[in-house]
C-alpha cells in the first residue's frame, strides 16, 4: 500500500486508538474520511493547517476525574473490580486471580508487549481450569487497511469458565440505573473495538474467537458517589457496524486507485515539524476526495468545520441535517430546492412528487405567514 504512504507524506502513520477506530464507523459513506484514515493521516493537523481547527477539547477536570476513577477501580490488584465481576458474572468468591500483562520489565516496544499478551492469553485459553482471571494492561492489535494499530486499553479482559469478557471503565455516572445515552453508546462502540481485537488475537492463536463474549462489562460510578458499579452491555450491533466499516476500509484501495496520480496530503513539515505546505494547495488536495458532510460530523470528525464550510459554499442541503434532506426528498442543493418550490425550475424525472410538495409548501407559506 505504498500509495497510502505517498498520500500521507514522510511521517509515520497515526496510530488509531479505540476511540478513533470506533469513530471510523460514524460516517461510513464518506470517501474523504475513509482515505485519510486508511492512510493514517493526522486529520487534526490537516484541519488546523487548513484554517479549520477541530472543535474538540477535553477539560482537564474530566481527564482527572477519569484517571481518579480508574485508579480507584484498579486499586490493590483490581480488588474492587474483582468484587464487581464476581457479582455480575456469578463467580464463587474465592476464585479469582489477577495477572498484570503490562508487567514485562524495562521499556519494551509495543510489539514485545503484544507478544507477551498473546503468550499469556494463549496459555489462558488452553488452560482448562474454571477459575476467573483478570488480565490487566493487555496490549491488543488490530489491522486496519494494512496498518497495525496497537490498542492500549484502560480495559481488562476477564476469563471465566473459558470465556473472556472485555471490561471497560468509564467515569460517567449511572444514576438510578440511567446514564447519558450518548456516553453509553460511545462506550459500547469502543468496547466493541476491543472485543474484535481480542477475538482476532484468539483466532490467530487457533482458538475459537467466539470465546470472547459480546457482553462487555461496563464499570461506572453509581449515583453521586465514586463507588463503582458494573453492568453488562451487549455490543453485537456495534460489532457488526465496526466489521462492516473495517471491511470497507480494506476496500478503500478502489477509491485510492481512482484518485489523481500525485495527489498527496503531505503537510511538508519543516525540521521542527511545522507544516509548510501552501494552504490553497492542501485545500485542493483535500477537495480531490469526495466528502459526505452531515451535522453529525461536528462531533465525530476533525475535518468537520472544513467540510461544513465546503458544503455551505456549495449550497448543499446536507448542511441542514438528514431530517431536512429526507423532507426534501434528497434534493441536493438549496438553490435547486428553492427553484422547485417557486416553480422557476422544471423538476427532473423522479422529482415531480417532491416538486409538487415544495410548490404547495411555498404557496402555503406565502398564504399564512
Amino acid at each position: 500500500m505504498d500509495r497510502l504512504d505517498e498520500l500521507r507524506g514522510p511521517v509515520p502513520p497515526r496510530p488509531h486508538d479505540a476511540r478513533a477506530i470506533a469513530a471510523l464507523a460514524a460516517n461510513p459513506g464518506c470517501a474523504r474520511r475513509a482515505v485519510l484514515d486508511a492512510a493514517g493521516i493526522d486529520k487534526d493537523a490537516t484541519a488546523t493547517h487548513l484554517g479549520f481547527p477541530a472543535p474538540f477539547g477535553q477539560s482537564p477536570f474530566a481527564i482527572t476525574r477519569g484517571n481518579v476513577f480508574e485508579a480507584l477501580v484498579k486499586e490493590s490488584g483490581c480488588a474492587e473490580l474483582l468484587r464487581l465481576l464476581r457479582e455480575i458474572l456469578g463467580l464463587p468468591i474465592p476464585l479469582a486471580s489477577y495477572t498484570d500483562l503490562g508487567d514485562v520489565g524495562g521499556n519494551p516496544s509495543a510489539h514485545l508487549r503484544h507478544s507477551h499478551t498473546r503468550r499469556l492469553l494463549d496459555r489462558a485459553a488452553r488452560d482448562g481450569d474454571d477459575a476467573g482471571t483478570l488480565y490487566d494492561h493487555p496490549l491488543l492489535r488490530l489491522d486496519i487497511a494494512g496498518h497495525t494499530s496497537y490498542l492500549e486499553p484502560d480495559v481488562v479482559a476477564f476469563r471465566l469458565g473459558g470465556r473472556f469478557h472485555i471490561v471497560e471503565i468509564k467515569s460517567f455516572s449511572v444514576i438510578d440505573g440511567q446514564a447519558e445515552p450518548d456516553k453509553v453508546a460511545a462506550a459500547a462502540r469502543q468496547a466493541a473495538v476491543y472485543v474484535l481485537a481480542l477475538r482476532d488475537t484468539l483466532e490467530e492463536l487457533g482458538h475459537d474467537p467466539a470465546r470472547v463474549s459480546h457482553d462487555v462489562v461496563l464499570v461506572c460510578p453509581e449515583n453521586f458517589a465514586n463507588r463503582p458499579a458494573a453492568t453488562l452491555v451487549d455490543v453485537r450491533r456495534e460489532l457488526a457496524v465496526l466489521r462492516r466499516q473495517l471491511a470497507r476500509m480494506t476496500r478503500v484501495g478502489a477509491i485510492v486507485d481512482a484518485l489523481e496520480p500525485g495527489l498527496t496530503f503531505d503537510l511538508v513539515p519543516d525540521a521542527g515539524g511545522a507544516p509548510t505546505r501552501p494552504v490553497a494547495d492542501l485545500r485542493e488536495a483535500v477537495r480531490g476526495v469526495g466528502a459526505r458532510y452531515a451535522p453529525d460530523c461536528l462531533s465525530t470528525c476533525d475535518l468537520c468545520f472544513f467540510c461544513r464550510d465546503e458544503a455551505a459554499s456549495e449550497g448543499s442541503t446536507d448542511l441542514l441535517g438528514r431530517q431536512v434532506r429526507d423532507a426534501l426528498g434528497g434534493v441536493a442543493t438549496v438553490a435547486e430546492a428553492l427553484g422547485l418550490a417557486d416553480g422557476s425550475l422544471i423538476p427532473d424525472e423522479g422529482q415531480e412528487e417532491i416538486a409538487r410538495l415544495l410548490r404547495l409548501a411555498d404557496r402555503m407559506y406565502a398564504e399564512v405567514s
Partner: protein
Amino acid sequence: MSTLAALARLRAVHTGAAQRLATVRHCHLSERPMVLIPLRLAGEAAAPLAAMAGTDPARPRLLVVPQPRDRDLRFAFAAELAEILLPYIEGLQKATETVERRGAEPFERCVDAPQVIVPNRSAVAFVQLLGRSTRFRRAEGEYAVHPSVPVLGRWLTFLAQRAQYPGSASLLAATEAMSLHWATGQSALEDANLASLMGWIDPPPGMTGAEAAREAEDPLVWPPAGPATDPGFDSEVLAPAIRAYAETRSDRAAARVGEAVRSQLEPTWRLMWRAVGLLGALPAGPGVAARWEGDRASFTGFAAQLAEGGPPQPKRDGAVGAASRLARMERAQASYDAQRAYDDPLVMAGHRLTGEAFTGTVLAADPDHAEGEGRGRKLRPLLTVRTSDPVRLAAGTRLGTPERRGQQAEVVEITGGHVTLKIVKGMGRGRTASPGSVPEVGERVCYAALTDEYQPPASLPAPEDTPWTHGGPPPEHVPAVEEPDEEEWA
C-alpha cells in the same frame, strides 16, 4: 420534519435570516419568569460549579462553588440557590382562585405559577440531577444539610418532571422554545447552541443571521451556555483559579473563581433575556392559557403535598406507573400538537401538506340533513368543500376545525378536489342546527384529523402529569442503612 419546516430552513439559508415557524406564541410566558443558568464541573455528574439566576435582567445573582469537589461547598450552593428559588415559588402560592366544577367539590388554584427558563435541554437534565441529589438530604443527623436543601430538591424535581409534559411551561429550555417558533439556516444539532440559534434569529446590527451564528461558535466570543463549560476555559482559567482557592481558601481566591465563571455566564444571561423578549413580542396562542392552567393546577397540588409533609418523589416510577404514564404522555402530546395546529395557520399548513388537514371553500351545505327516523333521527348537517390541498383522509375519519372548536365532523367521501363531510357534534341539540354552527356556502373553512380531546386533570395535584391522589401515593422512600454515605454528593 414537515416539508414546510424544511422549506423554512432553506429560506433561512437563502436569506441569511431565521424564518417564522409560528404566527403566535405556543408557550406561556410569565410576567416574571426566573432565568437560571447552571454550570457544572466537567467530568462530574452533578457537581455544580456556578449558576446565574434571577427574575430581573438588570440584577443577576451569581452563585459560585470555588471548589466543586468539596461537599460542604456544594450544599452551601444548594442552600443559596434555595434562597433565590424558594421565595419566588412561595410568593406565587399566596393568591388563589376558587374553581367550580360540575359534580365535584370546588377547589383552590393558584392564580400564577413559577416559570423557570434555562438555556437548553442539558440544563433541564441538570436541574433534574440537582433535584435528585438534594431531595433526599436531611436537616439532621450525620450528614445534615440546611433545611432548605431538601425542599429545593423537591421543587427542582417537580420542575424537571413538568418539563417532560408536552405543553407545560413550568420549566422551559430557551433553545427549544425558540426553535418552536423560528427556523434557522443550520441543522437542529447546531440549534442546540443558544448563541448560534439567537444569532440567526436576532443578529446584531450589520450582520446576517448566518454570520452571527458562525461567530457565536467561538467560545472566546460566546462562552457555551452550559451546563458544560469550554474545555479551553477550564484548562487556562478555571483550573488555576480553583487550584489557588484549594491552596489558600482565601476570599481573594474565591473571588477569582467567581470572576472567572461570571465571564462565562454573563453573555448567556443577556442572551436569555433577549430570547424572553422575542418570545414575549409574539401574541399568545389561544390554547396557551388553558395549558398554563394545567401548570398552575399542578403547582397548587404539589405545594399542598409539600405542606402536608409528603415524602420526596421516589427515585423511579413503578412499572405500572411508568406504562400508564407513557400512554398519558402520548395523548397529551397528540393533544398539544392539535392545539397548536388549531391555534396557528402556519402550524396547520404543515398538516395540510401531509394530507391530514385541508382548507377550502364551502360549495354546498345542507344544514338540516338528518339520519335515521323517528326517535332515532339524528341531525347530521352535510357540507361539500372544494379544496386544492392534497387531502389524504379515509371515509369515516373524525375531523375538528379551528373555526368552531368543539365541533366534530366525519369524512363522507372525497372525489377530486371535493370533500363531503357531515357534522356529528357541536351543532346544537335541536331539530335544526343552531345558528352559525354550520358553515355557509362561500365560507373558507379548515378541517383536520387532529383530536384535542384529552383534558389534563385540571383540578388535581399532578407533580408531572400523575395525580398522586388518584394513582395512590407513590411508593414510600425507605432510606437504606448505608445511604448517607452512598448518596454522598461526591
